[in-house]
């Protein structure tokens, strides 16, 4: 059979979602942000909720998320996305409101907003991209940078004695009663992508239940910041990041999953 005969509209099994715009993504080649964006929008499309979805982009690499996500979007001050989402969700209680944030945004400057939105059990979805570095500003150390991991502000490796250990913010917030669903996933292989999408879908579906906040962490690579090729970064991620940030569901239906 000739390739021409395969490539026909009726044979198409995968195509780009309409909820990703035509704009070329600003992310570095191989960056997990693009995948996480796409999964989020595929979920919004599959649930048929684009008319009721409002996203909040942070400051960081994904500050330009509103150029790529084809839903109503707001761009928040650094760290404040959960507060914006609270304002939106409280005044539009039936809408699907999500934040999409990096580790510096969510676990450093925005720690208070993260913890208190979770503690109030805001009926929102938080999508948290953890790549252990501040990407947009050129690769500085983040609250989730691993011990010994190099960055432009920990050029000799993160020194736990002076800068403390990486924060497992996801485990921290999973203990708050207001949090209903917590999952940590990754997007560097097809298997991981499928699981990540399932978790994101679960998070958005929870919004209908109004039983509390849903939180999905995506452990991802930062090729420029880590100074590796995409595939090497994904290998490094598997061997180092996933060792510290263990994948899987952490809280389901308001109950912590017993390990």
């Amino acid at each position, binding site marked *: 059979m000739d390739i021409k005969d395969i490539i026909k509209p009726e044979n198409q*099994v995968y195509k780009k979602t309409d909820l990703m715009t035509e704009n070329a993504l600003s992310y570095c080649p*191989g960056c997990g942000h693009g995948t996480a964006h796409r999964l989020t929008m595929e979920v919004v499309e599959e649930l048929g909720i684009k008319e009721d979805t409002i996203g909040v982009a942070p400051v960081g690499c994904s500050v330009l998320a509103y150029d790529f996500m084809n839903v109503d979007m707001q761009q928040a001050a650094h760290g404040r996305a959960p507060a914006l989402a609270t304002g939106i969700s409280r005044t539009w209680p039936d809408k699907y409101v999500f934040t999409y944030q990096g580790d510096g945004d969510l676990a450093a400057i925005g720690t208070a907003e993260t913890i208190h939105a979770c503690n109030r059990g805001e009926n929102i979805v938080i999508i948290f991209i953890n790549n252990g570095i501040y990407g947009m500003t050129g690769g500085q150390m983040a609250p989730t940078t691993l011990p010994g991991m190099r960055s432009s502000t920990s050029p000799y490796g993160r020194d736990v004695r002076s800068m403390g250990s990486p924060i497992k913010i996801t485990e921290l917030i999973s203990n708050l009663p207001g949090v209903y669903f917590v999952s940590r996933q990754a997007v*560097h292989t097809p298997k991981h*992508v499928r699981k990540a999408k399932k978790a994101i879908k679960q998070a958005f579906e929870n919004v209908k239940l109004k039983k509390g906040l849903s939180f999905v962490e995506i452990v991802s690579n930062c090729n420029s910041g880590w100074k590796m090729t995409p595939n090497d970064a*994904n290998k490094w991620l598997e061997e180092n990041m996933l060792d510290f940030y263990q994948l899987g569901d952490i809280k389901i239906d308001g109950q912590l999953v017993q390990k």
Partner: protein
Amino acid sequence: MAKIRGAIVVDTEKCKGCEVCVPACPTEVIGMAKDVNGKGYHFAFMANPEACTGCSNCAIVCPDGVISVFRVKADE
């Protein structure tokens, strides 16, 4: 038994040559082109088209969503 044949279409202008799709393909279909697109990236292509089963692994792992996938039952 009918054989599943697949094929992918890569938006070569938007591909950034990150190669993440290459190890994702279970049948080693994808290679990186010798020439480059408008941005200077070597783009992905079906180096071994016969082996493609249309499983979409490459498409779902592509950070820029540039791969479309086609699949058809071909009776040998």
